């Protein structure tokens, strides 16, 4: 048996990760969207989606990941996530930093417990989830790209 020259895994791992990666992504998106209702939130859901990306990196190898991974897009998305988090936090600046002014004064708020409620909490969850997802995928891709040992 000759040593594998590529960095991807075998056929079984690839096929099962093709089936599992969308499910992990959907579950992470559910955790992020329902962050203000059920246990979980931006960090946890973002880490779950990043787990899907890291599974892609591990199963399909670095060469395939380099084709799909766009560095400038990911850094822009991370910046947008952080800036949206800070900007939404600034909205209630007339009262206090991190004051949920959308919840107190916005007329379109649903009842507590529905998906479209809780003012800025869903926006913040989405922003933090985007930031954590892009950040963790970028970190793992950087670690895989810049490895020091020869293969």
């Amino acid at each position, binding site marked *: 048996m000759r040593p594998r020259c590529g960095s991807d895994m075998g056929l079984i791992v690839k096929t099962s990760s093709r089936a599992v990666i969308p499910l992990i992504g959907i579950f992470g998106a559910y955790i992020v969207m329902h*962050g*203000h*209702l*059920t*246990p*979980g*939130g931006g*960090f946890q859901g973002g880490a779950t989606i990043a787990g899907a990306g890291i599974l892609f990196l591990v199963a399909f190898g670095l060469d395939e990941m380099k084709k799909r991974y766009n560095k400038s897009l990911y850094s822009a998305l*991370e910046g947008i996530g*952080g800036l949206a*988090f*800070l900007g939404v*936090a600034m909205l209630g600046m007339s009262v206090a*930093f*991190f*004051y*949920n002014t959308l*919840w107190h004064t916005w007329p379109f*708020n649903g009842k*507590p*417990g529905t998906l479209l*409620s*809780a*003012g*800025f*909490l869903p926006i*913040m*969850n989405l922003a*933090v989830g985007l*930031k*954590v997802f892009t*950040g*963790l995928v*970028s*970190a793992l891709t*950087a*670690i895989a790209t*810049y*490895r*020091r040992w020869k293969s």
Partner: protein
Amino acid sequence: MKRTIAYLSLLFILGVFLYIANPGYGLIFGPGGKEWLSLRYTDNYYITHGLKEVGGMNIVTDIVFDYRGYDTIGEATVLFTAIAGAIALLRPWRRDEA
């Protein structure tokens, strides 16, 4: 014989752990009951006021994104710093190319 002693000592250690873990007469980690309510009134405040003041059903999200928002900013900064540090330390150096 040795094996029997080993199992007996394991059983003894398990019994000691169970005795310690019982809050009735073992170790007590922090106050409880009425004393807890008088010392840690912020916990009760979050539970009773969180839904009205912030609006989320998940009280942990209320605390993380509203009451303790600065902490979340710090966490996001730590994540960014970790990625920047990983890339700065792992990128190819001039010394390695030779």
